[in-house]
């Protein structure tokens, strides 16, 4: 497969995944914002739900360059519609569609048509129309478009290299996203041990779980109150949890095993090592090291792996 094609497929998948993650994050934030926060913890910045999506995506600085006030409307405008914010849903759908358009030959026509119609619909939205539709309904639409695209991909695409690069993009983006969400929540939203067990705590953790479709799974697996330790276990180490780091790295490693040849064994080895750490990792060790430290290291490793994939497969020099 052409390197350029592989690169576009990889970014097509990453953009769609990012659009979905942004939608999840905003949806949870929106629901949280409907709770009477001021009453529970007045004046605390970390309890301001609209800061969360900005911090998680690392976009707080970019946001304040464009907006003065942290408000629901401004964050929604920035994260959904802003054509200058490369992580906005608008830009992600546009990017995915542009990539798909430039590699139409490598994907099925159903996949292209699906992305194209998502993009055409997206173009019809402005802030007023989103309000009219309902913020949650709109975000639900974004998630459904992502699900639909994944389904079309899974159901129509030949299991060739194009499929593998697509899949690689999805899981690298997802792993990155899950690690970020977990890290931000753990540090930004739980400043002191005293908060553990409080009402804010409950809502924060359940929101976190909901943002990665993990709330119901958590209930099923643990049938108990939500604790940070279990959330960390669920989202880092559980292999059967589709958005966990373990699960993402499993997919990534499987894919790299197929893609790598004798010249690129080093990439496969690096992903294998990362996979082994998750596969045989223990929650106690993570807590002992510190969740934040663990996640930062993970993000560094996944970013280095992404760099290698880039250098070897996607944009070789």
């Amino acid at each position, binding site marked *: *497969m*052409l*390197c*350029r*094609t*592989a690169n576009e497929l990889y970014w097509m998948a990453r953009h769609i995944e990012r659009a979905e993650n942004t939608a999840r994050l905003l949806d949870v934030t929106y629901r949280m914002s409907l709770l009477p926060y001021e009453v529970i913890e007045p004046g605390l910045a970390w309890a301001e739900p609209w800061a969360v999506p900005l911090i998680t995506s690392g976009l707080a600085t970019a946001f304040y360059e464009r907006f003065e006030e942290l408000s629901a409307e401004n964050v929604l405008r920035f994260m959904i519609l802003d054509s200058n914010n490369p992580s906005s849903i608008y830009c992600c759908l546009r990017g995915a569609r*542009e990539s798909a*358009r*430039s*590699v*139409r*030959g490598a994907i099925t*026509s159903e996949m*292209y*048509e699906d992305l*194209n*119609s998502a993009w*055409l619909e997206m173009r019809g939205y402005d802030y007023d129309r989103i309000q009219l539709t309902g913020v949650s309904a709109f975000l639900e639409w974004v998630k459904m478009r992502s699900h639909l695209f994944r389904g079309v991909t899974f159901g129509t695409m030949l299991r060739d*290299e194009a499929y593998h*690069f697509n899949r690689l993009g999805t899981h690298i983006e997802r792993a990155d996203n899950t690690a970020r969400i977990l890290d931000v929540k753990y540090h930004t939203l739980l400043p002191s041990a005293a908060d553990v067990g409080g009402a804010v705590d409950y809502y924060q953790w359940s929101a976190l779980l909901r943002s990665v479709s993990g709330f119901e799974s958590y209930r099923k697996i643990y049938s108990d109150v939500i604790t940070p330790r279990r959330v960390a276990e669920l989202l880092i180490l559980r292999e059967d949890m589709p958005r966990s780091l373990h699960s993402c790295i499993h997919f990534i490693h499987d894919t790299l095993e197929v*893609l790598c*040849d004798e*010249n690129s064994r080093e990439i496969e080895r690096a992903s294998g090592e990362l996979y082994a750490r998750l596969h045989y990792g223990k929650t106690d060790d993570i807590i002992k090291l510190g969740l934040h430290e663990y996640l930062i290291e993970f993000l560094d490793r996944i970013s280095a792996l992404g760099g290698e994939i880039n250098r070897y*497969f996607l944009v*070789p020099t």
Partner: protein
Amino acid sequence: MAQVLLKGSRLADFTPVSRHLYDEMSSGEGAPRPHYQGFSDWLKRTPVDQIAQKREEAERAFHRIGITFAVYGENGGTERLIPFDIVPRIIPASEWRTLERGLKQRVHALNLFLDDIYHDQSILKAGVIPSERVLANSQYRREMQGMDVPGGIYAHIAGIDIVRADEGAYYVLEDNLRVPSGVSYMLENRRMMMRLFPELFATQAIKPVEHYPDLLLENLRGVTPAGEERPEVAVLTPGAHNSAYFEHAFLAQQMGVELVEGQDLFVQNETVYMRTTRGPRRVHVLYRRVDDDFLDPRAFRPDSMLGVPGLFAAYRAGRVTLANAIGTGVADDKSIYPFVPDMIRFYLTEEPILNNVPTWQLSREDDLRYCLEHLAELVVKEVHGAGGYGMLVGPAASVAEREAFRGRIVAQPDKYIAQPTLSLSTCPTFTAAGLAPRHIDLRPYVLSGKSVNLVPGGLTRVALREGSLVVNSSQGGGTKDTWVMAH
């Protein structure tokens, strides 16, 4: 934007003359022609709102499929939809048989001509075509002189523009031998019609066109450099911002070959490779949709960012085949067009099956005199002009305009040719005011390789504005499905 379907706007060259309008569907007394009977009956019994609904469905589907073309200069490349009309252009079996034979004959002769002028130039030596017409033509590529191409084929893909005029006779309006486009619309229009109106196809014998990509691939594989048993074919596109990008991607996908841009290729030891995720892979045949000038910055325009440095050297070394060959433009030039019937006689010793539009070459004294005497009836064009510029439409021009043009002709007669004003045939087309006649043309695609092949049909374009002869998509032109009946 003319390139998307047609370079230039040749149909603009003609003014409608209402006295002899030939309608494809109706013979004049309101009764449909026999080959339109089935469709006409269906149209009568299908409720109007159902048809309206299907038309909307077609438009939505084309948007979703993304059959759009980029419009240059509009917001740096806006994508637009080419309007699709659901009334098909139907060609009876007997007429198609003649068209098919005539097209094969014509394209065969054009390939022989290209092979000849880049080798022995016997047609020039025989005085059939004046040498300077060819050798001084800007489309003649000296670099190709003496070079052998596989099978002696230059125009692997030819788009021949045909109009029907007067009492129903077909004329070849133009040969497109460089990078003719539009075939994807032919295929998508058929797919759309079958999807919207399966019952029409179930009850009538309409010849299929869907195998075009297979024929094209077979054709391209057949012209691989000598000794390659499993040739790697790729489609070379200028990129996603090109107006015909949809088509490049579509054809690559339909053939199951790579769609490459210049940046994906490199040349080493006169061999062309693609950069792939598993290292370099050799390419044997490039179906290139990039113009000659931009193919190789080392050989042609040095500022081209679209091309591949060293590609021409690899081509000359016979290590890669380009389809179409470099330098085919000399055979589809307006100044060469009048000689195509003579080419057919010269190379094939046959009479041409398809007519040219009669053309007066004003470099000839007799023709010039005739033209000046009949200026009010004729269309006069610049030999190297395109896109409807620098031309006079006699019947539509004012006396002052004609006189001004007369002066220009007299000053430089060899710069001009003249043709009669043809009335193009019409086909019923859906408009805001309901079904109305609109002018159409036809572009069949002729493939040359080990043999000459074409699918039954082509792209029918329609001028959607009343009375207009401009079928260009950028100027309100649309397309129709083209049916060739099996019997």
